[in-house]
């Protein structure tokens, strides 16, 4: 499995965990289960995790499919520089966020999922992966001629003297045309 980027899977897992935390939290708060303040925290933590994990990082090899509308969040996540780029930080952050939700049954599934995501991020960090934002490529104006045309030539190309430029007589033609050639009117 030489080419796996674990961060990709960690990202999917963390996003799912965020959603599960929010769902469990909403159920517990709406039904006012005992200990529902933990659930309120879980909602906040879940939303935060979702926002953080929504923008997909750029893969090292190959192209990365952006999630719909992620460029706005990419701009925000990019601002934090090394905190969001480093996966060790993410691993520890997710582990820490997961713990308080573990005190309530409604949100403990979110805790478990986020814990797994944290573990995969740790693995990614050990393998030296980093989060790089997917930048929008600036629109390139198509270069005419691939950029090789610089200036039109100033001098005509050197030609051999006039008498050698005469065409050889038709009888000495060295080529057999496979397809009959018709001479079109000039």
């Amino acid at each position, binding site marked *: 499995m030489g*080419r796996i980027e674990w961060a990709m899977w960690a990202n999917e897992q963390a996003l799912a965990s965020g959603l599960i935390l929010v769902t469990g939290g909403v159920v517990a708060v709406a039904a006012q289960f005992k200990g529902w303040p933990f659930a309120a925290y879980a909602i906040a933590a879940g939303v935060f995790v979702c926002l953080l994990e929504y923008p997909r990082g750029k893969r090292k090899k190959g192209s990365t499919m952006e999630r719909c509308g992620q460029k706005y969040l990419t701009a925000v996540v990019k601002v934090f520089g090394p905190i969001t780029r480093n996966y060790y930080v993410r691993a520890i952050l997710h582990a820490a966020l997961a713990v308080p939700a573990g005190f309530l049954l409604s949100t403990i599934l979110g805790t478990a999922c986020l814990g797994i995501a944290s573990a995969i991020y740790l693995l990614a960090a050990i393998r030296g992966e980093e989060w790089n934002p997917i930048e929008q490529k600036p629109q390139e104006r198509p270069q005419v001629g691939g950029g090789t045309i610089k200036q039109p030539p100033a001098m005509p190309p050197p030609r051999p003297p006039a008498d050698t430029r005469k065409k050889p007589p038709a009888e000495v033609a060295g080529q057999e045309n496979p397809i009959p050639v018709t001479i079109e009117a000039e």
Partner: protein
Amino acid sequence: MVLSLLSIVYGALRCNILAIKIKYDDYDVSVKAAAYLCIFLWRSFEIATRVVVLVLFSSVLQIWVLPVLVWLGLNAFLFWWYYRVYDVPVKYHYSRKLLGSALAWARAPAACLNFNCLLILLPVCRNLLSFLRGSSACCSTRIRRQLDRNLTFHKMVAWMIALHTAIHTIAHLFNVERCVDGRVEAKGTIQAALSDLGDKTGETYLNFVRKKIPNPEGGLYVAFTYLAGLSGVIITLALILIITSSTKTIRRSYFEVFWYTHHLFVVFFIGLVIHGAGRIVRGQTDESLKEHNPHTCEKNFTQWGKISSCPIPQFAGNPPMTWKWVVVPMILYFFERLVRFWRSQQKVVITKVVNHPFKTFELQMMKKGFKMEVGQYIFVQCPTVSHLEWHPFTLTSAPEEDYFSIHIRIVGDWTEGVFNACGCDKQEFQEAWKLPKILVDGPFGTASEDVFSYETVMLVGAGIGVTPFASVLKSVWYKYCNDATSLRLKKIYFYWLCRDTHAFEWFADLLQSLENQMQERDNAQFLSYNIYLTGWDESQVTTLGKIKDVINGSKQKPLYGRPNWENEFKNHASQHSSSRVGVFLCGPEALAETLNKQCINNSDADPTRSTLHF
């Protein structure tokens, strides 16, 4: 048709009049002639619009929609039925007193989960599907082709499982909360009385929570000490891991993660079967119901056992049902894996390894008893490279050849490993015994044999989709050489779309050799092919000052950009206006939409009809 429509309208008219007369039964109603006319017009309008809508829908109906509708209908029915099983009967009256409607909300998706977990294993039994496809020769190819949509169905069922798991889990969160509260907090209420049952000897319990630990710890304790709770948490976690590793990004880029994580389904199914073994869903026993009627006795719950009309109610748990649903598919899947293993152990001999330019190589193999059709694919494993990975490849040889071949392009570490194992990187001749062991499973997929039932075909291959057409074209050629008169196919238009032909040089060679052979046989018109290099367009080519002649010596120069399908279709339609033209596509979905539209636009009424196959 008009007559039947008229008779239906007449019947509606009579019913309408009869209804009016019955409503005013006491009076003698006489209906005026104008009223008759109004009713007639109204009913005929109603019926006509309904028939039109029905005809329109069924004309665009794809055949695969029907099984999906049946499946959705069954889901809805099971949900509703089992909801009522727990919401209506008196057996669960006290359970509902304790838990509310959350009991029914948990049991209904449980039934749907049983149904969907039964279904999810079936579409992935490849060999079973191949067997069904082969043995159902009576059914039309259109029906048999639906078996190719097995993975789509597998994904739909998986999403349904996820949805029902969510509903089931949320409902049980309520149940656990209420059970624990009933045990701990409710004082003097019927919930307390019900929860206390089972404390004394001779009593059976209703509330499965026996320890008096308050929420929220109580809920956590229940979830992790009871079999149902623990197995539920584990299998839900397994399901979530399976789902997150099955997203398109992960599947396409890191197949191994997807494949290995997916095997957590074993954990899922084992947990699912033991999930209900604790029998914690309790209902009143039949004997108890005879003596103790909940409707009359619930009001005096403090008197149970003290008055003769209301003895202590007795409860029992429901036996686990899931195993009955999933045992057959589990056995079928087990046999599927056994068959795959057995088939893969059959000896495969590599007869030839051909090195093609641009990181492509061809493996020609032979296997005893291997039968293939055009357009099928096989799964290949190379134990020297990886013991667990199986990769699918379209067969590029024709059934008429005595070997079968695949063309492999090096895109990852597995393909590179096979490349090295076959000695492609070495210049000198390789000994046959040095070639690696290869395991082959297959062939799978619906054959593209429909190609041979048309007089004229348009074959469109985009990118990697060109590979099945190698098999098709070769097979056509063999059939032609064998007996040209028996071949119904008279003209092939082949369109090859790719960014550049580098990846498929070998296919370009194939086309060229076919072209040459047809020239020799004086039938140059049989196959006309057009290569479109979509990575370029005309303007870039001319300004660069040279035309990239990728196929040297080819009589047909490559074209740049995308083909103008409307023109192509118009030309073919006018040239072959009295015959059916089959259009075959292997490529992206967007292209399929385009071609489908063009087919419809350029098809006149009978007898000319272009039908689209892919």
